[in-house]
């Protein structure tokens, strides 16, 4: 029983990342009709916003420590962050410790600006082109973006830890009345799940309860009619692209303490996120979220030792097997709408 609960929890945090990426993909597809293969790169760029912000906080000047030597036997050069000079060492180190959550504030404007620039600068030229062209250009863009990141940050993962207060894990099993040590769950993964739920709720509320969201939803349903009413729907869709980029970016920012970011992390999530979108139903926001969590949990169960003993390697194909079964029984996906991608 403990194993099952633990795998559900594991599935929820993995599903959170799938759901956030798939939500952004669906927003872009639903508004602009673009199949954006660069969306995984936006997730990766978000993670590197956290790395960059952390690096900015640690910008330093060098002080020579004559009492110690470096690896060559020369007097040791010690880096002292400027933030220590401004706020003192205690406050400065606390700010650096909280770099990941604080970098949300940095990532939101950066990712929106990147999203808008991407849409205006490149993707809008491909609206009327076939989906194959869109896939090729966005996939190419993803490769360019990851190579740029690799050039500046290297290929190895960069440790970006959670604040000290959230390092470690708590015994969830004891809270449920099980034996101690049976269901141990990291604090940060729980925070990631709650954060994802908050962002997803925020996006839905934004679309459901604001005038802007109402217009966007109307545009998604019938773009021509909304345009005929004199509304500049293109501008709103561009903003939605920026918001989708920010959602992917925030998913990346908060993911950095779970797995140290590297330039390739976007590609690792991209293909699975597309499967999530297809299983959820092309263009369906609730479908993307539902499928994200569902496939995350199923994947976690497929990685259990007991399952692998019976079906070796099943964890590597389970998501695709589920996709095949869903598409055979519900060709439009779990919550797909009629007419989407059917022309």
């Amino acid at each position, binding site marked *: 029983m*403990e194993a099952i609960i633990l795998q559900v929890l594991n599935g929820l945090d993995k599903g959170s990342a799938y759901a956030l990426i798939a939500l952004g993909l669906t927003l872009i597809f639903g508004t602009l009709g673009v199949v954006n293969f660069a969306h995984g790169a936006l997730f990766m760029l978000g993670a590197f916003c956290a790395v960059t912000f952390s690096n900015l906080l640690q910008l330093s000047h060098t002080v020579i420590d004559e009492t110690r030597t470096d690896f060559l036997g020369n007097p040791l050069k010690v880096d002292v962050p400027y933030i220590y000079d401004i706020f003192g060492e205690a406050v400065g180190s606390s700010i650096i410790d909280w770099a990941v959550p604080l970098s949300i504030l940095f990532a939101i404007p950066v990712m929106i600006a990147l999203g808008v620039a991407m849409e205006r600068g490149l993707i809008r030229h491909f609206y009327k082109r076939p989906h194959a062209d869109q896939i090729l250009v966005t996939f190419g863009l993803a490769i360019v973006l990851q190579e740029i990141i690799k050039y500046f940050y*290297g290929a190895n993962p960069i440790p970006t830890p959670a604040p000290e207060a959230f390092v470690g894990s708590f015994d969830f099993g004891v809270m449920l009345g099980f034996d101690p040590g049976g269901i141990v769950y990291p604090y940060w993964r729980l925070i990631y799940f709650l954060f994802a739920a908050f962002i997803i709720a925020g996006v839905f509320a934004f679309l459901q309860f604001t005038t802007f969201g109402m217009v966007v939803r109307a545009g998604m349903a019938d773009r021509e009619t909304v345009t005929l009413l004199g509304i500049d729907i293109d501008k709103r869709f561009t903003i939605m692209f920026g918001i989708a980029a920010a959602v992917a970016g925030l998913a990346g920012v908060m993911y950095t303490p779970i797995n140290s970011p590297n330039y390739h992390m976007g590609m690792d999530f991209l293909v699975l996120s597309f499967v999530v979108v297809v299983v959820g139903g092309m263009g369906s926001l609730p479908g993307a979220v539902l499928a994200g969590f569902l496939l995350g949990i199923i994947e976690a169960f497929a990685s259990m*030792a007991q399952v692998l003993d019976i079906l070796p390697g099943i964890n590597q194909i389970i998501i695709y097997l589920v996709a095949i079964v869903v598409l055979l029984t519900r060709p439009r996906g779990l919550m797909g709408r009629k007419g989407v991608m059917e022309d």
Partner: protein
Amino acid sequence: MTKSNFTRRGVMKTGAVAGAGLATPTIFTSAVWAQGFTNEPTGDTVTLGFNVPQSGPYADEGADELRAFQLAVEHLNGEGDGGMMQTFSSKELDGTGILGKRVEFVTGDTQTKSDAARASARSMIEKDGAIMVSGGSSSGVAVAVQALCQEAGVIFMAGLTHANDTTGKDKKANGFRHFFNSYMSGAALAPILAAQYGTDRNAYYLTADYNWGYTTEQAVRESTEAAGWNTVNTVLTPLTQTDFSSYIAPVLQSDADVLVLVHYGGNMVNSLTNAVQFGLRERQANGKNFEIVVPLYSELMARGAGENIGGILGSQNWDWKLENELGAKYSGTNAFVQSFGTKYGFPPSQAAHTCYVQTLLYADAVQRAGSFNPCAVDEALSGFEFDGLGNGPTLYRADDHQCFKDVVVVRGKENPENEFDLVEIVEVTPTEQVTYAPDHPQFAGGSLGACNPGA
């Protein structure tokens, strides 16, 4: 009209005498290898091919290897401070290139993919005339390129490759490995693990699903079982896996009190990070502290894992602190660190060290053989005993072209003082303890075959 004194017979006689005279300095050493071979250098330069991952997940390791190769070439050509050439037990290298030919090099990108690595090695051999190929950060690549070099008739001086197969079932006469292997990691680690954590331990293995993972898991498992440990479970993990939480969770449910992560590169960084997140370092199991072991360490990986690496035991081929901490037995280490650190501003990784050493060893073998012929190099390197290259006394065993030397057992530092001070040396396991018979079951199959000089 003038009458010439030259006759055809006279010219032939004079030519024969002059030719014999010119050949005298080398005739006793290289006559056996005078016949043609692939990419025989004819001008006043010789080209080496450095095939390293310049893109892909091991690009940082590849960059460090390339730095080391460049440094080695500088030293061979008499530039810089000479590095390990000053401490190397063989004194054949004098800074005038190799056999008087200035050393040039070309580079290729393996992308850490066997097919890409073979393609770039083939290009270096066929288009650029490389007489020797070196480098690489993966056993899959090493095995593939080694086989290509054997076919092409050039020498392969392997870079970072740790799987037993490279000098086991896939060994080739034209291939040589300085880096240690999976068996040696197991043999070096097991006694120290038993001493540090006790002999009554239950180990759970998460193993990368490819040849390096299999051989390393087998080596560590057999060595630790011989020391009294019990293996609870072994689980293969896909190379593409990034989140290992679903693999870590079953460890919590098992009877294990040790987790062995047979992962390398990004896999290792992620699996170790996940294991620490799930509280395994603080966990108590079977009345003991739960422990994590990473059989193959790398400084670059340790940097990626950050503070999670603290307290984790593993093994290395070499460490830049060896001579400072363990004395003159490991001479050459400081000379190399000084050269490398002065040029690049940070200490070299073990990948850089092995590539630098391999380049010097190749050059020295050519110099001693008096020929670039791969079969001459094979003869010069096989059974060669040397010292002063950072690892202490070392043997290039003739039976399998594997180097035998001490293995460094390390532990991640709990409170590193700087980004280069990530591991501490726990102990150095002596050569005798990591030496095995050429027909050891973990290296069974395959044969070295005969050297191939190519053309």
